[in-house]
Structures are given as C-alpha cells and as structure tokens.
C-alpha cells in the first residue's frame, strides 16, 4: 500500500518538476517512479508489488465489466412493461475489516448489477445491501464473496 502512495507522490513531484500537467506526463511519471522503486525493491522489501499491481488491474477490469453489465440490467428492467420486482435488504457478513476496504467494497457493490449498499453495522462486521432481486440472497452473497471481496483482499494485502 505504501508503495502505491509513494509512486503517486513521486509522480506528482515529477509533474511539478517538469512543469507539464498533462495526463500522459503523470502516467509517465508514475511509470518512472515505479521503475525507480523497483530498482530499490530489495531495500524496501516490497517484492510483492508487481503481483499486487497485476491484481489491482484485474480488480479494475472486473469493475468496468460489472458496471457495464449493471447499467444494461437496469435498462432492461426499467424498459420492461411488466416490472417483476422482488426487492429486499439482506445482511452481508464482511471479511475485510479495514475502513478503506469496506468503503471500496461498498462502492463497488453499489455499482454492480442489482445491489446497493445501504448501511454498515456499528461493529463493522455486517454490510446491509439492498438487492433489486432478493429472491436468492445466498447466491448474491456468494458472488460478492468470491468476486470483489476476494479481489480487494488480493490487491491490498
């Protein structure tokens, strides 16, 4: 995690130093700082960075796929003359426990097909999710656990 932040900070410094605040310069700066950090990886003991970077990108790809699918599903549902709804709120037991992981998971859940996070319990162990089709809550829970939650754990731990 600190390596991501370091890379980003270095990239911003790179943009400031070169004086050209364009996107490709930022990306170039990010690539450059990642390369520099890779060179000193032994000293920084962050060898897992490359694997985690790949997993982070795979999380991003999954997210865009799910977002497109979810917008399409909403479109089909809304345009259907006879709307068949079985909405409901189910409790999802959280495995991730850090604040930013819960936030990320809640956001991803909201942007994926048929689910919307409503609230998190006081002890931060349960997420309450509203589903537009709640007839099989167990299947939805399984999808979240094996999809986003696992990928978040892979990318940030």
């Amino acid at each position, binding site marked *: 995690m600190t390596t991501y932040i370091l890379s980003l900070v270095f990239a911003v410094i790179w943009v400031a130093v070169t004086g050209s605040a364009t996107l490709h310069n930022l990306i170039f700066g990010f690539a450059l700082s990642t390369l520099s950090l890779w060179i000193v990886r032994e000293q920084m003991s962050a060898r897992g960075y490359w694997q985690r970077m790949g997993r982070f990108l795979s999380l991003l790809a999954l997210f865009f796929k799910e977002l497109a699918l979810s917008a399409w599903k909403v479109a089909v549902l809304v345009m259907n003359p006879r709307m068949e709804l079985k909405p409901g*709120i189910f409790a999802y037991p959280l495995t991730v426990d850090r604040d930013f992981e819960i936030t990320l998971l809640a956001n991803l859940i909201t942007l994926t097909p048929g689910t919307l996070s409503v609230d998190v319990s006081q002890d931060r162990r349960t997420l309450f999710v509203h589903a537009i089709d709640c007839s099989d809550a167990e299947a939805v829970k399984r999808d979240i656990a094996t999809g986003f939650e696992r990928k978040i754990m892979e990318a940030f731990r």
Partner: protein
Amino acid sequence: MIEVLIALLTALLILVGAGFALVAAVGLTRLPDVYTRMHAASKAGTVGSGLMLLAVALHAGDLSTLARALAGFFFFVLTAPISAHLLAMAAHKMGYPLHEKSVRDELNDYRN
C-alpha cells in the same frame, strides 16, 4: 478516413450515453420506492454521463481535455455510489418503508 471513424464513434458514444441517461430518468419515475430508484440513478446515470464525457474527450482530441474528462468520470464513479448510499441510509433511518413486494429487510431486524 480516420476523421469519419472518430466522428462516428463520438456520435455512437453520445447516443448510447444519452440512452442510458434517459433510462435512468425513466427508472426514477417507474420504480416503486426510493431504494429501487437509487439503483437506476446510481448505475445507469453513471454509465450515461461517463460515456458522454468520453465522447467529449474523443471529439476534442487533445490530451488536456481527455485528462479532464477522465477526471470527471473518475469523480462520478467515486461520488455517485456514495450519494445513493447516503440517500438510501437516510431514508431507512427515517423509517421510509420498502415497497410492499419486498421479500425481506434484515436491516430492520438488526435495528430492532
């Protein structure tokens, strides 16, 4: 040749984006309660505005516009779920009922 392709792609992105924005608006009026309406607003709305921002970036064809359009899309993805989530949470806290077809409400069970 490439100009025609870019113009076609831009037009397609705008049309599809506007279509999703329309679907979001129709969903807001057709869906029965605030929770299901948030589904339409957060998903179809985000994708609709995202596609149109992408069309702007493609049409302008320079990098600073692309950067700003991508930043706009990024912030949209960041903020739309949060506002949907806050509205749904506030509605539930105020005791706004789920639609009568709803099959379960475990948040209600948890609170009581």
